[in-house]
C-alpha cells in the first residue's frame, strides 16, 4: 500500500468539500484533489489507462449500499458481516512461536499438560476498516527481519509506519472498530487473561505423500493367505459395471498428508509472563517446535471480562502514548524520503546527513497547493 498523505489531512479536506460526498469515493483516489471530488468512482488503477468501471471481480468498494425502502438484503457484504458478528472475536490476536510442551502440577496431584508459546516483539502494524476494506481487522507483525531480506516495496511500507521489518505478518479479524489498534503498539503476553479461552491456529507437521493406511486409517490387507505385494495398498476403489464403472468423487486415496492449517479451539490460558514473553495454554497445539502460531480469543466461548479488555487497552496507551503522533511523523518522513528516491537525490541526501525537517513542510505545502506538479 502506498502511503497517503497523513490521514488527518485527508479528512479535513473532505469535510471542506462537503459532507454529502461519499467517503468511499475518496479512498481509491490516487491523489488528493483540492477543489472538487468527482461523484463517480475513480478507478483504482494508478498507472496506465483504464476505463472508469472497476475490473470484473474486483473488490466492491461500496459496502454500505442503501436499499430504497426495500427490506435489508440477506446477502452481500453488509449482511455477511452481520451474520458473522457473534463468531468474530472482539479483540485482535497475536503471533507467537511454539517453544515446546511441559506440564503444570496441581496441589492435589493433577498433571496438566501445556504448551509454551512465546511472543517476540509483536506489534500492531495496520488496521483494515469497513469503509476501506469491507471488514474490520488488525494486521499484526512478529519478530524481526533483516532489511537485506526485505524487498524495496515492503521496506517503503514499513518506513511509512515507522516500524522495523517483521519476520511474520498476520491479520486478525475483529468485530467492530473498537477492536482496532494504533499501529506500532507492542502486544505483550498480558494481552491475555489467565483463565480465558483462546483459539490457537498453526500449520501442522507435513507427512509428505502418505498411503491410505496412514492418511485415512484404512485397515490394509492380509499378511498371508496368498496376498502378494499388496499388504499396505488400499483395496477396491468402488463398485464396477452396475454403478457406472467409475471412481466416485471424494474417494479417499493416498496423497499429500499434513501441512494444513489446524485450529485448536477453546484452550484455557494457564499463565502469562511478560518477562519471558510467554503465554502457556493447556493442551497441545499443532505444528513442530519453532512453528508460528496465531492466538486469538476463542470464538465459541465468552470473551474475557470487559474490565480486563479496557485495562489492556489502557496499558497499550500507557506504554506507547504518542502512537498517533509517531505514525504521523513517520509518514511525513517517508514522504520526503520517497520524493528523494523518485528524484534520485537519496544518495546526496545521505551524504549530507538526513536532515529533512524543513523539507517536510515545504513538500506538504507543495502537495496541497499544486498536486499536478507532484504527480
Amino acid at each position: 500500500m502506498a502511503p497517503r498523505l497523513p490521514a488527518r489531512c485527508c479528512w479535513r479536506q473532505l469535510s471542506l468539500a462537503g459532507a454529502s460526498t461519499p467517503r468511499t469515493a475518496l479512498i481509491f483516489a490516487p491523489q488528493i484533489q483540492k477543489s472538487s471530488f468527482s461523484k463517480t468512482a475513480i478507478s483504482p488503477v494508478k498507472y496506465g489507462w483504464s476505463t472508469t468501471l472497476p475490473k470484473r471481480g474486483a473488490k466492491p468498494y461500496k459496502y454500505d449500499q442503501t436499499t430504497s425502502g426495500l427490506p435489508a438484503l440477506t446477502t452481500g457484504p453488509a449482511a455477511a458481516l452481520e451474520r458473522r458478528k457473534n463468531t468474530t472475536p472482539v479483540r485482535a490476536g497475536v503471533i507467537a512461536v511454539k517453544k515446546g510442551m511441559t506440564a503444570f502440577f496441581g496441589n492435589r496431584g493433577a498433571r496438566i499438560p501445556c504448551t509454551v508459546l512465546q511472543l517476540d516483539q509483536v506489534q500492531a502494524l495496520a488496521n483494515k476498516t469497513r469503509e476501506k476494506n469491507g471488514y474490520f481487522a488488525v494486521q499484526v507483525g512478529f519478530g524481526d527481519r533483516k532489511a537485506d531480506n526485505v524487498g524495496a516495496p515492503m521496506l517503503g511500507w514499513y518506513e511509512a509506519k515507522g516500524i522495523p521489518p517483521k519476520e511474520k505478518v498476520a491479520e486478525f479479524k475483529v468485530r467492530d472498530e473498537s477492536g482496532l489498534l494504533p499501529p506500532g503498539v507492542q502486544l505483550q503476553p498480558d494481552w491475555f487473561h489467565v483463565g480465558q479461552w483462546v483459539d490457537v491456529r498453526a500449520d501442522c507437521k507435513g507427512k509428505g505423500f502418505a498411503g491410505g493406511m496412514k492418511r485415512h486409517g484404512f485397515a490394509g490387507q492380509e499378511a498371508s493367505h496368498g496376498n502378494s505385494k499388496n499388504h499396505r495398498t488400499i483395496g477396491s476403489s468402488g463398485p464396477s459395471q452396475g454403478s457406472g464403472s467409475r471412481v466416485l468423487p471424494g474417494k479417499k486415496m493416498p496423497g499429500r498428508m499434513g501441512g494444513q492449517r489446524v485450529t485448536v479451539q477453546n484452550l484455557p490460558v494457564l499463565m502469562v509472563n511478560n518477562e519471558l514473553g510467554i503465554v502457556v495454554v493447556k493442551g497441545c497445539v499443532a505444528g513442530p517446535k519453532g512453528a508460528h502460531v496465531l492466538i486469538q480469543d476463542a470464538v465459541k466461548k465468552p470473551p474475557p471480562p470487559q474490565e480486563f479488555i479496557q485495562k489492556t487497552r489502557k496499558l497499550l496507551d500507557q506504554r506507547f502514548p504518542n502512537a498517533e503522533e509517531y505514525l504521523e511523523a513517520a509518514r511525513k518522513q517517508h514522504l520526503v524520503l520517497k520524493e528523494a528516491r523518485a528524484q534520485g537525490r537519496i544518495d546526496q541526501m545521505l551524504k549530507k546527513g538526513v536532515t529533512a525537517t524543513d523539507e517536510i513542510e515545504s513538500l506538504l505545502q507543495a502537495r496541497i497547493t499544486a498536486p499536478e506538479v507532484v504527480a
Partner: protein
Amino acid sequence: MNATPLVRRPLGCLKNSLRQARQLKESRLLVARGMATTTTETTGSEAPPPPRHHVFQIIDRKTKKTRTAFAIYKPAIKPSLPTLKELPPILSPPKLNKPPSNPLPALHAEQIKKMDPTGARTRLFAKTRGAARVGDILMVTHRRSGEPFSGVLIEIRRRGIDTAILLRNHLAKVGVEMWFKIYNKNVAGIEIVKRAKKRARRARLTYMRKAKHDRCDVSAAVFAWKKTRKVTTIKASAKKAAKGGKNAAGKKAK
C-alpha cells in the same frame, strides 16, 4: 563449604574432592566477575544511547553507487550506517521488549521452586555424588495407592518440572514397571533402599527387561532395609515414621 571434610574422606576419592574444590574456586571467580560487570554497566550509562533508527542502502552492483535507501526504525547493527536525526526524541520508536530465546529453563525453575520449596526432590535426582542413580533400588510412597512401590531405577527422564523416574519390579512373578513424576504432590516420598554396587554404564537399563539381566523381585532388599531402619528409629513415634519418607529422602541427598 570448608576444607575439613576433604581431610576426613578416604584417599580413594581424593581426585573427586580436588575436582570439587576446583569447581568451587571457579564459581567464586564467576561471582567476582559478575559483580565487576555490573559496576562497569553503571559507569557506561553516561554515554549517549545509540540511535534507534538507521538508513538501509541498496547499492548498485555495477556502479557501486547507492541505488536507493530506506529508513529502518531499529538500531543499526553496524554503527557506521547513516542515521536519521530529524525525529524529535519524544517521537523515537517504541522500545520493544525482546524476550529470552529459550524461556523454558526459567519457566521450569519457577515451577520447581513452587512444587519443591525445600529442593529435596531436585537434589535426590541431581547429577551429584549423593543423588540416586540408575541401578539403585528406590521406594516411592504414593498418596493415592496404599502400598509404597519399590523397584530398580532403570531410567531418569530429565524434563525440568516434568522429570520422571521409571521403577521396575516383579509382582507375583510378573514384571511391573511404574513411571513416577518426581514433582507431583501425589508422590509423598522417595527413598533409596539400596545403592548399586557399580555405576551403570548405560543411561537407561532397558536390558533389564530381558530375563538374563532381570533383577526380578526386590522385596528381599526392601525387607532388609526396613529392618535396619526399624533398629535406628526405634524411639521415633509411629506417626513420624509414617510421614518420614520425604524427609528421609532429603536427608539422604544432603
